[in-house]
């Protein structure tokens, strides 16, 4: 994938011919400094933005020709999102936030599952609290639950601990790893706090819009 922003003299190559694949159940960490292109990469994988060149395949399905409505449906069914600021809807309760992805598809059968996941992430007692009445760590765990409720193929997390203190961040990371292990869930996590995550299945480093396998290996460019 290549992503270019701007035109002519203001042209910026945010992603430069990046290509890699992720196996089912892998916990992948995408690291890099600020402005390296890691969030852009996540937006492309999450179909929130379109690459200038290249395409994203999920479960072997080419997503480049999908219409706007199809992209929305695809995002809803195949992808889960965890954002830096949790991004829960303040107008809804914790449970309602977690149920929202399934309600968008008018699926009303996930109530028990949502409660189950919320219990697993330690929010059993917070189900009916308004989203803006819980702590940052709890909100992020609720966001993880929301990302998992539709059994997505991949959960994409963009700086999920970026707004949390170290203790809360550690707790949230543990929850994500536990979910990945227990559910066999694929995670692609973008962070610039590599140390917080400890052991993960795989690390991809983004530098100047290019992707490299491993932590400090500019020579090992990913060309999968």
């Amino acid at each position, binding site marked *: 994938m290549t992503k270019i922003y701007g035109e002519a003299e203001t042209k910026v190559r945010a992603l430069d011919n990046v290509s890699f694949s992720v196996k089912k159940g892998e916990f992948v960490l995408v690291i890099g400094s600020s402005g390296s292109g890691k969030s852009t990469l996540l*937006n492309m994988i999450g179909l*929130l933005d379109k690459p200038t060149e290249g395409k994203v395949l999920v479960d072997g399905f080419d997503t480049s020709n999908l219409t*706007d409505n199809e992209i*929305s449906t695809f995002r809803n069914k195949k992808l889960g*999102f965890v*954002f830096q600021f949790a*991004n829960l809807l303040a*107008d809804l309760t914790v449970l309602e936030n977690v149920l*929202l992805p399934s309600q*968008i598809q008018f699926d009303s059968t996930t109530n028990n599952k949502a409660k189950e996941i919320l219990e697993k992430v330690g929010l059993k007692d917070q189900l009916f609290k308004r989203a803006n009445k819980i702590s940052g760590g709890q909100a992020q765990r609720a966001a993880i639950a929301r990302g998992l409720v539709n059994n997505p193929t991949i959960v994409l997390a963009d700086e999920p601990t970026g707004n949390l203190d170290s203790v809360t961040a550690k707790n949230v990371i543990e929850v994500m790893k536990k979910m990945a292990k227990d559910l066999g869930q694929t995670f692609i996590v973008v962070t610039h706090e590599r140390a917080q995550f400890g052991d993960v299945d795989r690390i991809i480093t983004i530098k100047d819009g290019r992707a490299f396998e491993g932590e400090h290996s500019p020579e090992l460019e990913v060309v999968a």
Partner: protein
Amino acid sequence: MDYRFHLAKRMLVNKRGSLIGAVLAVSIGILVINVNFVIFQGIYDAIIRDMSEYRFGDIYVYDEEKSTIEKSDTVLINWFERIPGVEAATPRLEASATAETRILGHQHEKFNVPVLGVDPISDIRTSTIHETVGDGQYVYARNSIVVGESVASDLGGCSQGGFFMSSGTDPTVTGDVDIGECQPVRVGDSVKLTITDQWGIDQKKRFVVTGISGTAGGQGFDRSVIIHIDTLRDMLDRSGESGSIMVRLQESASPYDAKQIKNQFLQAFPNDNLRAETIEESAESTLAGFRSGIAMINLIGYFGMGSSAFAILTIQMMLVNSKTREIGIMRAIGARRKDILIIFIMQGMIIGAMGAGAGTALGLGYTTYAKITNMEFGGSLALEVNYNWQKIGETAFIAFILAMIASIYPSYRATKKQPVEAMRAV
């Protein structure tokens, strides 16, 4: 419940200030229209009511060419009273007279007044003018006279601040004695009328005041005097003639029945130069201008409602802008543009429904208040207050639709937000 409705409702409830502002904008528009309706339609209906009750009845018959109907009133009244749906009919005759009073032997006031001649027996069955006699009683004898409140006052010299001065509709100063405080004509006083008959000869007659009639609103006989029709016929030397026939239909009769009976009457008397009008036709010239006024006031009300639609549009734009991040989140987790559109249009519908409900409740409250308190216009004309459910429903529905339409553009703008950019909004 559809999650979009649930979300729309929650978003609105959590922005109470905007919600209250938008609901007030809608409800005030409705209230203005309802208040206008109660007052102006109330005046309109009150004028029709009074014209019908006092002057024209449900059907009004007169001669097309002459000032009087020469055909026997008994024949005409008997004809009408045989028709099913007709309650009663009565002859009336109008003329002009010079009225004068004498107090302490001196001529006190003298001026021209309209005179109405009535048949006391049939008139009380056809008209409610007898109910307006507050002091004394209605015309019952050949020499009795019922004086309108204004005439009673003017004949006592009260219209000029309590001092003896000429006044009335056609003042003619003939007295020269200052008798101090005014003394309105009262029951038992005598009033002399001078009427010029059809041959140009003045006919004078003294009457005893048997009652004072007070009818507000300009459709009654405050500025007239009422005497027995046969007395007036004698004075005019028009024996057996009537100026008009006033016909009252039974309460169950509709305007359609009135037209039917009118047409039936005209077919029955084709060669008598008689003209018959329903109350709508009789009141037409008086009320045509008034109707334009009502239409204008209603137009202003609807402009007000249009303004409230702009207020909703502005508030909805603010709501959409304040919810940019939420829109981005929803789009990211799979909501389609259509879902976002529906959420904000539903907000407009909620605002419209709440505003229409509140406005209608306020309007009905005002209408009920006007009805219970027998609200009067200008302190005199009792408004004819009716619940016009069709009008109330239409107004509420239009307000609801306007609120929904006003939400379309902000909702459309909401769908144009890209998730990535929208989520960056603070």
